[in-house]
């Protein structure tokens, strides 16, 4: 018989532990399917979280937002030139446009009196508008619909085409490319850790030390663009942007030193991905949305109970030191080298 799922469901469905936690793994097909979704979630949160830690320290939290919109003209141009939706040109075009977008933002900030946020907003909307214009003028039957680009669906990962190199089936294409990018991010951070750290925290010191500050900045932007491009088409922009910001900000309520914050993005990405998956299962809603909600919950917990500048901590601190002049100012960004 046909089942209609619209039949009077309560707004928040009853919580059924067996159905939520165990049914998704009941058959091998389901285990493989849902396993891919959770793995993708972990990879995206991890890669974004690691890159994001540096981005947030540089006060460029919304750079991810900017780049993810700024890549549209790159995609459009790649399509118009190649007349196909071949993967590599699209990927290349997107990365190039993303990088160009971040260059423009940087340049505007330096060469004009604009505030950083204004420069950012100005640049990426221009890029996005240019992309929309290109698509509507020359896109023809591009089937590139800006909305499709901005809202990927992580749940459809298992249906994505398989990537095979030299006849060996490697698995779902977005999953494999995300894995490659995640490894690349981890390796780059390990190799260039010192340089990234100094340029992020102390620009002047980095200059006096003779570090190629600009080069390092663009390297980071390139890595950011790569991460965003390989993640967003599969999982949607909102998930990418939030995963750039949430892990490091949440971790900063528990740790103040950069290495600890970087390492804690690993457990956090597991919590986000698995928690989000089960929340989506329970509420029967979008998985990406549920993942971001779990990330917000973790942030809320950290903010209230976190030992480093959390609300409870501040309250206790105030009780111990009732004289207002002794209260430590916490308006500086809490992460230290």
């Amino acid at each position, binding site marked *: 018989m046909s089942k209609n799922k619209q039949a009077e469901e309560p707004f928040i469905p009853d919580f059924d532990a067996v159905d939520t936690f165990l049914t998704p793994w009941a058959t091998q097909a389901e285990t493989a399917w849902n396993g891919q979704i959770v793995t993708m979630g972990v990879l995206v949160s991890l890669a974004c979280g690691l890159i994001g830690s540096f981005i947030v320290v540089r006060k460029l939290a919304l750079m991810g937002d900017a780049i993810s919109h700024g890549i549209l003209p790159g995609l459009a141009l790649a399509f118009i030139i190649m007349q196909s939706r071949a993967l590599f040109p699209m990927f290349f075009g997107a990365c190039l446009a993303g990088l160009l977008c971040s260059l423009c933002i940087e340049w505007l900030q330096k060469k004009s009196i604009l505030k950083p946020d204004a420069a950012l907003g100005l640049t990426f909307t221009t890029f996005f508008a240019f992309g929309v214009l290109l698509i509507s003028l020359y896109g023809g039957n591009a089937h590139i619909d800006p909305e499709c680009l901005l809202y990927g669906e992580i749940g459809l990962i298992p249906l994505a085409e398989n990537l095979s190199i030299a006849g060996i089936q490697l698995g779902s294409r977005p999953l494999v490319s995300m894995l490659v990018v995640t490894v690349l991010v981890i390796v780059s951070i390990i190799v260039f850790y010192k340089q990234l750290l100094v340029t992020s925290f102390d620009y002047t010191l980095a200059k006096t030390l003779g570090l190629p500050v600009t080069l390092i900045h663009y390297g980071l932007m390139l890595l950011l663009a790569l991460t965003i491009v390989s993640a967003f088409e599969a999982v949607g922009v909102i998930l990418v942007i939030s995963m750039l910001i949430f892990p490091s900000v949440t971790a900063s309520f528990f740790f103040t030193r950069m290495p600890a914050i970087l390492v804690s993005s690993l457990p956090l990405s597991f919590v986000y991905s698995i928690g989000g998956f089960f929340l989506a299962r329970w509420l*029967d809603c979008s998985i990406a949305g549920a993942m971001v909600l779990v990330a917000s919950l973790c942030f809320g917990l950290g903010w209230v109970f976190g030992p480093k500048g959390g609300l409870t901590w501040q309250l206790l601190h105030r009780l111990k030191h009732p004289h207002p002049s002794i209260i430590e100012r916490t308006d500086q960004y809490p992460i230290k080298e």
Partner: protein
Amino acid sequence: MNSFTTLTKNFLKPSFFSSKLFCSIVTLAIGGCSDKSIEEKEEPLVVVTTTHLSDLVHSLAGDGVEILSLMGPGVDPHLYKPTSRDLSSLANADLIVFHGMMLEGRMGQALEQADKKGIQSIAATSEIPNSLVLSDGNEENDGHVDPHVWFSPRIWSLCVKTVMKKLIELDPQSESQIRDKAKELLQEIELINKWSLAQVARIPKDRRKLVTSHDAFRYLGKDLGLKVIGLQGMSTKIEAGLADRANLVDFIKNQHIPAIFVESSVNPAAMHEIAKESSVFIGGELFSDALGPRGESVVGPNGQIFELDSWGGMMVHNVTTIVEALGKSD
């Protein structure tokens, strides 16, 4: 809330130990051995996307298969987003029947890949010859085709045959039953086709104009000889601009159109405003991208009763509503 109590309760229930879940836990614990051997095989699970397909598969296979419809009545397929459980059900499906022609948007694109992934799937519209398909009639022909083919009895019959073949492949033992049911269904479609033509003939020629929320009815219009005007384009994604509205109001006034129609799966607010501005009445609600609710029925050709959640009921309801509203003499 009481997750633990539920969990323990379920553990204590004797049925738990025979359930699929327990089997799968055991399987996981033992590792390796196939799940399917333990689990008793039920009817095959067919996951369908739209209500039209749910009805189609149900008419063909009856209770021989379990049908799971992703989109319920009143859900707009252009805007549908799959939920977590919907996606899980795709993993378990023995067959996925989807509409194709970009009706399901991004999900349709993904479902086209399902075959390569070893999941049986079929686009119901995959065997329609290009000559029968209408392309987007708007000025900027962007290569999209009009996916609303279920309004054409002739084309829908082709879809019936496509799905029939796939269902026989899935369950070869019930081939004769499925073929019989398909025959009945095709006869019903033909009956409704003739009846609809006779009904529309009752509307005076100059009034055969159908104004609706979005461009879904072009196949219906083509088959029945109605001129069709939609406020929004073919996809409901893009809201109508102000100019579209003003043009439509002018059109309704100039052409002396007696009534306009709202759709069950599109927000009717804009059409109500247009009706007010151009002082025409709303002729009723048509079923466009989803079938009607369950449990309601309508009287069709030869006094036959049709359920609104079936293809026949949808056609009879739409034609009756259109004929009543447009055929009324002032």
